[in-house]
């Protein structure tokens, strides 16, 4: 028996970071769609807008903005997409972020070195790149 062939057919190679981001974005979009029903379009719009907001204003300002908006029913989608982003970043940087809750998360961001902060922001863009596509794909239109 060809043991090499057997091994390759049964082993599960580790997914790339891009695959993990894609999986996470796809799963979160499904959860929000199931929960929000007809209001799901708002989540898609927020996912689309977030990278430009971060580029123009910075990650911490945008997370604070989303937190404020998310406290009102009319701004739930901003709160939700920011919570999803914090969750993903907490998964990626567990030692930096013991919690994905807004206040402890922001405290950690405020204490991060410029290099860590830039790495976290770059990761936010990398994940949002997937979310804006996956959330839109779930919606059934561009």
């Amino acid at each position: 028996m060809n043991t090499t062939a057997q091994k390759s057919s049964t082993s599960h190679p580790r997914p790339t970071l891009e695959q993990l981001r894609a999986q996470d974005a796809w799963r979160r979009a499904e959860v929000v769609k199931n929960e929000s029903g007809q209001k799901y379009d708002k989540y898609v719009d927020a996912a689309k807008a977030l990278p430009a907001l971060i580029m123009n204003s910075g990650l911490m300002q945008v997370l604070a903005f989303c937190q404020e908006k998310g406290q009102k029913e009319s701004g739930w989608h901003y709160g939700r997409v920011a919570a999803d982003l914090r969750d993903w970043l907490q998964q990626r940087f567990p030692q930096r972020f013991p919690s994905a809750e807004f206040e402890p998360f922001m405290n950690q961001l405020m204490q991060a070195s410029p290099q860590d902060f830039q790495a976290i922001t770059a990761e936010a863009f990398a994940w949002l790149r997937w979310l804006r596509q996956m959330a839109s794909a779930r919606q059934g239109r561009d």
Partner: protein
Amino acid sequence: MFEKHAAVFLYAVSPVHMGAGQAIGVIDNPIQRERHTRHPCFAGSGIKGAVRHSWEVLGGEKDQIDAILGPSPNPEERNGKELHAGATSFGDAQLVLFPVRSLRGGYVYATCPTAIERARRLLALVGVATPWDQVPPVAEGHCRVVNKDLLSNGNKLHLEAFEYDADATECEALKSIGKWLKDNALPKKNGKDNAFEYFRNKIASDLVLLSDTDFAYFSEHATLVEPHVRINDQTGTADEGGLFYTENLPPESLLIAPLLASQTRTGKNKGEEGWEDAFSVMAKIKNVMDGKLLQIGGDATTGRGLVVAKVLEGK
């Protein structure tokens, strides 16, 4: 074979949208970037197209467009003439300086060892000497500055939301690079007006050297991103799902591109009327471009793409 060589500095005086076409990323309409550095760039074809488009307005003779830039590949526009190569070549423009918001001084001209060394290499290849010292090393989270007035809290430089430790103030190596760029990268006069003097002086004083990593962060994530909406003709309001985002290279960015010239390739031989050597071709293209305002990239009707060209001929 190109016999004459030059470098062209392109200084943005408005946002520039040299688009990358349809792309799937964080921005709907991103700008062109180099694959390996992710620095913004201008494709040589875009620069050449812009020069061709403005040829006559910039003082070029209409009947020389084909000889110098090549005839149109479209047979109808070529009026039956044979297809042949143009006598000039435009390379891709690479980033040299990128403006970054600063707590002091408004903004600084940021650069990094890789951007400076690539510019120096290109200038050397086209025969332009750069009498500046070796670019000093700079660590992540650190910087080198010429102007100590940019610093606060002792030796801290604040760019956007980030703080950098200045390893050297009045850095001599950086000062010599800044002085050379001041003297060579922007026109000295616009007609009788000294319109560029302020910016030439600012390049010399507010040049900041960051690490390659820190510079790459700003050049990728600190561009100009604008939301646009599509207006519904019926309602006069924003169309549902019509929101999109466009990225621009910010004004005050500086790029450099190679420019090469050969003899004309129209089929005419040396001595025949219409034949021109590389010196003559380079003189003509320089006359059209040097110190002139070009429009490159898209969104021209909303004031995008204005760049000032400065041609430096090699030896």
